């Protein structure tokens, strides 16, 4: 396991006062709180921060950490001294959100012996495990059809002696047809384990869609930018258009301009009511590569002169 420099994680020097530790925690917790933060790695940072604060705010744990940690650098391979033993009081309990799982192996090795963790609970007393949150990214196609999705979660679990060990859990979760981005699935009893016979918390999965090559979802509606040729737009045409349910033929009305929006009713994500697909036309003009093509463009300029910038007064 690797040594964790809790002072470095909190941006503090080793002689920081309790007030400085609290202030640093509050500041960083605001920055990385998973409900508020837009930082990509907020959950991991917040977890790390919570672990660092758990140790540094507690004079007993801090003293023990300072004693064992002398001379170590962040990330160095670490083994606790053979005579290591940390005695917890009976009122030790953890607070704070621990998204994605519990504390590091390093923490467990130093302080993890013989007690179980839960929100505001105490050692030996029955307590409910806390709820867990995870964001999962799924394909739009899976939301359209419904799917079984394998997700991996890092979760602490109590072993036979009641020690917490980190455990990768793979859950096969049913993604219901027609789920939308931002919607949550609640899996009862799949959150953090409880202690002293208390039940497990719940797991909430928040759905996000992976970016799609050409579809964009807004609620149950699907948006698509459809490239068309100038003659398809000007003369009208029936062209194939991809939808989540497969290609459909769509009639482009004659005289269409770029930006024109067509609505394909009920072709979005399923539901009551089902979403629609909105197709926005994008006119793509071929390059004039040959003399013949150039001549054609020149003829167009002569036959159909226009100033597309007239409205701009130029």
């Amino acid at each position: 396991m690797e040594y964790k420099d809790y002072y470095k994680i909190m941006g503090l020097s080793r002689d920081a006062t309790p007030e400085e530790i609290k202030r640093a925690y509050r500041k960083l917790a605001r920055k990385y709180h998973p409900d508020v933060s837009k930082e990509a790695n907020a959950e991991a940072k917040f977890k790390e921060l919570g672990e660092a604060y758990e140790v540094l705010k507690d004079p007993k744990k801090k003293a023990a950490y300072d004693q064992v940690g002398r001379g170590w650098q962040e990330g160095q391979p670490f083994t606790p001294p053979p005579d290591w033993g940390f005695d917890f009081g009976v009122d030790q309990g953890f607070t704070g959100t621990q998204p994605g799982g519990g504390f590091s192996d390093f923490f467990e090795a130093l302080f993890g012996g013989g007690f179980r963790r839960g929100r505001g609970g105490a050692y030996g007393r029955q307590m409910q495990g806390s709820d867990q949150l995870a964001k999962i990214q799924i394909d739009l196609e899976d939301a359209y059809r419904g799917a079984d999705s394998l997700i991996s979660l890092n979760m602490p679990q109590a072993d036979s002696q009641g020690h917490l060990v980190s455990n990768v859990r793979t859950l096969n979760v049913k993604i219901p047809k027609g789920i939308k981005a931002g919607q949550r699935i609640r899996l009862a009893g799949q959150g953090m384990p409880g202690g002293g016979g208390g039940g497990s918390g719940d797991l909430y999965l928040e759905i996000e869609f992976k970016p799609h090559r050409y579809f964009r979802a807004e609620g149950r509606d699907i948006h698509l930018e459809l490239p068309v040729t100038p003659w398809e737009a000007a003369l009208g045409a029936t062209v194939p258009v991809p939808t989540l349910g497969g290609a459909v033929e769509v009639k482009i009305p004659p005289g269409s301009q770029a930006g024109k929006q067509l609505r394909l009713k009920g072709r979005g994500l399923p539901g009551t009511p089902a979403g629609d697909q909105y197709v926005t036309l994008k006119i793509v003009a071929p390059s004039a590569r040959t003399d013949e093509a150039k001549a054609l463009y020149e003829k167009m300029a002569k036959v159909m002169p226009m100033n597309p910038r007239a409205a701009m007064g130029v």
Partner: protein
Amino acid sequence: MKNEIVVISGIVLDESMRFSLVELCDFAKASPDQVIEMVEEGVLEPEGTSVYTWRFDTHALKRLQIAMRLEQDLGVNLPGSALVLDLLEEMERLKR
């Protein structure tokens, strides 16, 4: 480290769902007093006129859970939570 496969399906918290006060407390592991206080502070806005007829939607469940975490992790009080939640939702709207 070991792997175990568990096949599970949960319930989708969609916008048509409604919870009574008791159900909401059960879901969020909150106390009725906590929820009543949040309604009084405007963090939650249930349908219905009395505690007995209150109906909360899944949006309220999410707001309640975030408010509880903000209080626990950052020491944010209820008016502060209401402000944070409104700003977070405004940010979401602007992003779209």
